[in-house]
């Protein structure tokens, strides 16, 4: 299952670090694929992905695909930001509850209202991937 990949100009303002473990996630995002970890012991998922299940502390985790679909729980528009984000101001960030029962914080790319359906979209910057959320198409 893959989501849209939107080509972006320029570099990310504050690029996330990658560990041997989290690079699997970021490499997936670069291809429009959202994945996270699921525990083989308690069968619960986690986000961000973690090498240890935060629910039961088992290290028997494996990767599982996410639909990238959910609803907008809350959002705000930031008008005063850190130096690195000055060029983006104002920008909107928010909290998305995914269909799989996980809560994610990300950039909100449009004016979606609370409790409306959204979808994650990969943002392919010149130096690597990020992601955001936007109003889900009506047919989904």
């Amino acid at each position, binding site marked *: 299952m893959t989501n849209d990949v939107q080509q972006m100009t320029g570099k990310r303002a504050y690029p996330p670090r990658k560990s041997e473990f989290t690079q699997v996630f970021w490499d997936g995002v670069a291809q429009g694929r959202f994945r996270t970890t699921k525990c083989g012991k308690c069968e619960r998922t986690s986000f961000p992905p973690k090498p240890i299940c935060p629910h039961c502390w088992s290290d028997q985790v494996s990767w599982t695909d996410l639909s990238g679909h959910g609803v907008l729980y809350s959002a705000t528009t930031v008008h005063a*930001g850190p130096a690195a984000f000055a060029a983006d101001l104002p920008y909107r960030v928010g909290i998305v509850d995914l269909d799989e029962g996980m809560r994610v914080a990300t950039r909100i790319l449009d004016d979606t209202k609370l409790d409306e359906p959204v979808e994650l979209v990969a943002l392919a910057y010149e130096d690597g991937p990020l992601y955001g959320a936007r109003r889900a198409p009506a047919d989904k």
Partner: protein
Amino acid sequence: MGVVAGAIVRTNDCFQIACVTKKYPIFFMLSDLLNAKSRILREYLQVRTGRVIALPTYRMEGVRLNENVAILGGAASPVGKMQGVSEDGIQQLEHEVLAKLVVEALADAGLEKSDVGSMIFTLPRPYTQQKYFATFMANYLRLPCDGLVMEVMGNGMTPALAFQTAIDQVRLGRTKVALALGVNFETGTPSAEHMMSSMRATGDVDFHTPFGFTPISWYAMDAVRYIHEHNSSREDIASVAVKNRRHAMDNPIAQYRKPMSLDDVLAQRPIVEPLGLFEVPGRGDGAVCLVVASEDVARGTGKPFVRVKGEGFYHEGAHQISEMPNDMISFEAAKIAGAKAFLNAGISAKNLDLAEIYAPCTIVEILVAEALGLCPRGQGARQAANGETSVGGRIPICTSGGLLSRGHPAYVTALYSYFEVLEQLRGRGGARQVSDAELGIVCTELGNYNAAMVHVLEAVA
């Protein structure tokens, strides 16, 4: 000259050997005496006093906690701009500011240098040049300590953790008197640069920071959700800022004291929607010293003091957001920490006369008031607008002016909150005094109220 230990005195909670050669009395926990053969006790006293000691006989009756701890005194600098270098190269230095407050606070407490045996500091900002500030100050004040000397850190809860840890030193019998103190100098650094650091604090550096979340953006999302769920309004929420400014006008150490109307608040440029400039905290420098002591010491001073009647801490195991969707604006940790503190104090929320709440934004004060049971769910904003949380109202909140008007030098902010309740419960609130104030709380947090610490404080005449 051979006998140095005058006597082993049984006090409420630990034994004390008054050594005439030292200014500092030596305390023992009863457990020490229970374990020690008299030979070992003699060895110990020899190291401490440099002399051979004759030991009186003593009796042990089981180990007991120092249950009751009191706040005896305090001193706080006005919140505002202190950091920075003038044209002639002169600047205010953190340790000079704080040392002066230590002396003031001790005088306020009616105690002396030799009574103090522990100092728990808030971690200074990285902009403070002097590193290892706690031990630097132990030297600057030339203060030997049997209780811990350290710096603690836990986001906006930092000062409350220092306060709690100072209490713990007394409760564990390491000292009779401890200081909770700190200095927050940060205004020498511009905001956009400061945010480059703070954006790495309130969230996940790899999964939140890259999107541009700022500390207050999380609270803004609380406000948006609150308005959405409870049919509240920006106006009602903003009334908290107006109310707190009114309180601050009567607080001589407050940073912002000019009169301010609701229209003034609403007219400001947006910072994190729906919150505008006057609904989010400004930046400031500050320094505070509080004196805590066992209740027997407090009684010995003959002065009014404040008893730490109850305490509660809870961390919900999340940071900014819970990865499992939950009711983000119910502030679970504040609920639990409050319930723990009330249980520990043997009171209910309705017994309170006032509350100082750590609330960097208007909305936070509302949500905490609801979580603690000071206002019904969904009614906090309305009740603030109605004056129920003003001085003179049903339950005055943030009589100091709170973070928005008293000011928010973050790593010492909550020390100002304890100081305000100390002043109120000693009847020193001036024009903002809550009449007959006997029982107050201080509530602090970290993250998006993912953890909370509540102290119930009681006036003792």
